[in-house]
Structures are given as structure tokens and as C-alpha cells.
């Protein structure tokens, strides 16, 4: 089976949250970029499928500025992905426009054999959750987001997965090629071994240059402001002598002060 995983470099959890000098985006000066969250699960799921179906190949693709994008591609290689493709992005792109990202990634994915394109359900920073279906649309493949319990039936060559709705869990089956946004992998993401980390540092990355991409309309959605909420000042403590007194006080506050009592 030919699997492509698309991942996005996101600033790690220790990145200090503050606006960049222009006030438009998160200040990424000095930030460390990592493979994280749903993307990490997508890579894990791809590797689980590779383990389950002998002869499979997992290719990882990422779109973004070179330095940080290389980091996540190497992290994915260290985990066991077979090849990595860096899709160059325009130097000033905020890549807030999902069309641009989807089209750039689609251009790279089209060059690779693929039965399954796996993406995290949403990125760890902007959390928009649109890319899986946008990418599917750009590729002309069926696409679903929020997939769980993904399996591959090798005899029928069918992917089976759950897709959550408000009322329950839909069961779907789909032959490849298909794009899936993954809610959860079959197990916790593995940790790369030291030797594989060192090997991944020396691996050659494939590149798709700007010249090979369709014109990207970066003006469509642009970042205008990045704001932090006023710091929460800590809880207002409810003082009480009996549980009943605590309950009465809390209900009154929710009603009269916070005005959220139903």
C-alpha cells in the first residue's frame, strides 16, 4: 500500500505566546517547530498500516518555510517514514489560506503514488480542521475528516473507518485513493529511536519548488491580528460552612453575576 502523510510544523508547547512585532501572528522568533498532536497520530497510523500490510511505503509531505519544515520531515523519517518531500512556500506566505495549502500539497501528492493520504484532523496551531477535505477536493479524491478506527482490508482493498456525527458513529468503507483526516491513531504515537534520529539527520529530502506549484492566492485569507486573552486572575473562591451554603452561593453567582444559569 502506498501511503502519503501530510504534516505541518507547529511551534512546540513551550513556545511563549506573544504577538509578533507586527501584531499579526504568533511571535515565532526562536520557536522550536515539532511534529505534534493530530499530525503525530497521522504518522503513527500510517506506520501501523505499514506494519500491518507488508510491502507498504509511507511518504511524508510538508509545506512551509524550509528550516522548520525540514525539522518535522526529519522527525517523521526518524519515526519510520520512508521518504520525505518538502514543498516550498512563498517566503512571506502566512499560509492562512487553506486553498493555497491544499493546492500546494496536492501538487506534491500527485507526483507520489498513493492509495491513502493521511492528514491530522486539525493542525496544532490554527486548528481550522479544513485541510483534509480541501486537499481531497484539490486532488479529486473522496475525503473525510475525523476518522477513527481506520483499518485496511487487503483482500477487498478497502479502507474502513468510523466518522463521528452528532447522533453517533457512521461506518464507512472506501477504496483508495482516499484522503482521511485522522481523529485518533490505533495507539499512542511511538518515540523515535536515537539511531533513527541520527540517520534521519543525514537523509536527503525531496523538494517541490515554487516554480512547480500552481499560483497560490496567498491574499485570500490573511492574518490581521494575534491577540492574547486578558490573563485570568484566578478563581473567585466560594467560602462556606456547609455544602448547602456553597451550592446556594454558587447558584446565585452564576445567576446574578456571571448570568449563565439556564
Amino acid at each position, binding site marked *: 500500500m502506498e501511503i502519503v502523510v501530510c504534516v505541518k510544523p507547529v511551534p512546540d508547547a513551550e513556545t511563549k505566546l506573544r504577538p509578533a512585532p507586527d501584531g499579526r501572528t504568533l511571535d515565532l522568533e526562536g520557536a522550536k517547530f515539532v511534529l505534534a498532536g493530530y499530525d503525530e497520530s497521522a504518522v503513527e497510523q500510517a506506520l501501523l498500516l505499514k506494519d500491518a500490510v507488508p510491502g507498504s511505503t509511507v511518504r511524508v509531505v510538508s509545506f512551509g518555510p524550509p528550516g522548520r519544515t525540514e525539522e518535522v520531515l526529519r522527525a517523521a523519517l526518524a519515526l519510520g517514514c520512508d521518504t520525505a518531500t518538502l514543498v516550498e512556500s512563498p517566503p512571506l506566505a502566512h499560509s492562512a489560506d487553506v486553498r493555497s495549502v491544499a493546492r500546494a500539497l496536492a501538487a506534491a501528492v500527485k507526483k507520489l503514488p498513493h492509495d491513502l493520504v493521511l492528514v491530522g484532523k486539525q493542525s496544532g496551531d490554527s486548528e*481550522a480542521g479544513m485541510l483534509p477535505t480541501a486537499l481531497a477536493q484539490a486532488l479529486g479524491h*473522496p475525503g473525510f475528516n475525523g476518522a477513527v478506527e481506520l483499518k485496511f482490508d487487503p483482500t477487498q482493498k478497502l479502507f474502513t473507518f468510523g466518522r463521528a456525527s452528532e447522533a453517533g458513529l457512521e461506518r*464507512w468503507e472506501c477504496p483508495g485513493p482516499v484522503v482521511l483526516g485522522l481523529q485518533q491513531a490505533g495507539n499512542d504515537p511511538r518515540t523515535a529511536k536515537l539511531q533513527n534520529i541520527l540517520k534521519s539527520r543525514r537523509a536527503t529530502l525531496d523538494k517541490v519548488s515554487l516554480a512547480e506549484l500552481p499560483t497560490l492566492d496567498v491574499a*485570500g485569507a490573511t492574518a490581521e491580528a494575534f*491577540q492574547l486573552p486578558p490573563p485570568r486572575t*484566578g478563581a473567585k473562591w466560594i467560602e462556606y460552612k456547609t455544602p448547602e451554603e456553597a*451550592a446556594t452561593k*454558587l447558584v446565585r453567582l452564576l445567576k446574578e453575576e456571571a448570568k449563565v444559569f439556564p
Partner: protein
Amino acid sequence: MSRSVLVVGEPRPTGLVPASREAVAAARLAAEGGAVAGVLLGGSPEAVTEFSRGGVTGLWVGSDASYAERRIDRWVPAILAAAKSTESEVIVLASTGFGRELAGALAVAWDAAAATSVTELTPTDEGLFVAMPVLGGRATSKLRLAGPRAVVAIRPNAFGAPAMSGEAAPVESLSAAPPTPTLAGRRVGFEANAASQGPDLSSASIVVAGGRGLRAPENFHLVEELAEALGAAVGASRAVTDAGWKPGTYQVGQTGRSVSPQLYIAVGISGAIQHLVGMMSSRVIVAINSDPGAPIFKIADYGVVGDLFLLLPALTAEVRKARASG
């Protein structure tokens, strides 16, 4: 400058998803006095009534049962047909799981700028300015969606739904039959959520969530009783779902659901960052915990320190009393 806006209603068995009604409010802002049409695919008669009285100027209905499968290759062409008929420049959806799936596909298919989880919307001459929580609700990002077309999925509980009007807007049937699926994939089964009597966790306006502080699965009913009294959805911390007290669908946090209700009550949850990023954008947070040093209190608006086995029954009784007396 006014513009036509199309609202995509998301049906559920008992009518419309609440955020679809709220989407009408956002659409009215975006329209600046222009027409706000609705499109409803595969909804029940109750949904048609609710939507047509919910503040739209017109409603397009595709009543074929096949829409219930929620196939993107059926929905997107139907939505685009409605957008074309209404000459809409903006499409507004509810930022539910399915709403985001549609938004992504529409962005490419309709060649539009798009945003999800939108909590604020301001039309300007330079485009729609929208705000949404990012980084687990720890920050807000503002984007400008430059024309000519924009897709906006709005976060549940961010916009107040318009009052129901006594008079229904004109309802028209989408002329064409539902588009034939062009892509592979088959829905082969459905497992209804077990006894989903409460509201949906992702879009509920009140959530009561329980954590390890409850000590044992048999104590979880204390949380469920409070939720029932409040008409709230029930959530849980990862410790609870990992231990198997509750299924994974209850989990609030980084690897579970993100929620942003009006009121979030955290019971016996210490407040690991994993959990906090899934609920920090809630409007009002109440924490009930035996440990005054628990990190949850740093982000809570109201804190009650004490024995939750005594506090919860008292609170449930008080809530019942307060609601009964109006």
C-alpha cells in the same frame, strides 16, 4: 455595502443543530442588510419549520433522504447550486465536525477564502474580518477573508440565534435531484450514541465534566445528575476515559473534544494542560476540587474547594430548586 449570504443548515433528528440557528445571526451581520437565504439538505419537517422561522429571508430545501448520508460529493454541488441561485458571496455554516468538512471542500470547490471556529465577524470594504480561538483557546487569531467569495463556519455559542419569527420565510425546493455521488466511498453502518439524552458535548451551552477526583466509576453519576439538572452535556478528563470509566467520546482536551460552552463546571479535575486546551475558551469556568493548589483554579472564574461527594449532591439539589422556581 450589502451582499447576499447563504446559510447551510445542519439537520439533526429533532430539528436543526443549534449552531445552524446561530449561523443565521452571523450571516445577517455579513449580509449588511442583504438577503440571507438558507439551504437545508435532508432535514425533517421540524427542521424546515425551525429554519424558515429562524431569521432567513428564504429557504431552499433538498428533501431527498440520501442527504442524510452526509456525502460531501452530494452536499457541495447542492450548496453551490443554492449559492448560485441566490447569488451569494458568503456561505455560513456551523463549525461542527461536518461543517468543517464542508468548509474545506467548499473553499477549494468554490475558490473561496475560508475560516472555521469563527467567534466574531465584521464586514468591511476590504473583506470579512473574522476572529477565532487558536492554540487550544489560549489566543485569538483575526483573519481577513478577501473576496470575492468567503466561507465562514461559526463556533457554537458564539453568536446569539435570532428570535424565532411568527412568520415562516418562503420555502422553495431545490429544483435538481440530489447530485449523483461522483466519488468512491460507502456508508455501511451507523452506531447511534448510547442513550444520548443530553445535549451534544461539542455544541452544548453548559458542560459538566468529571475527573479522577471522583475516585471510582460508580461515583460518576454525581456528575451526570448535576448535568441533567442543568440541561448540560457530560464530559470527562482523559484520566477518566483512559481508565475506561467513560467512553473516549466523553473526553475533553487536546486528544478529545474542544468545547467552548457558556458555562463549564470541572469536577475533580486537576487541570493538566492537556485538558485545559480543550476547554479554556469556555466563557465561565467553575472548578470544584479538594486540592486548592490544583491548576484548574488558575483559569477558573469560581472555585469551590472541598469534598465533592458532599458538594455535588448539594449543588444538584440547589440547581433543581432554582430552576423549578424559575
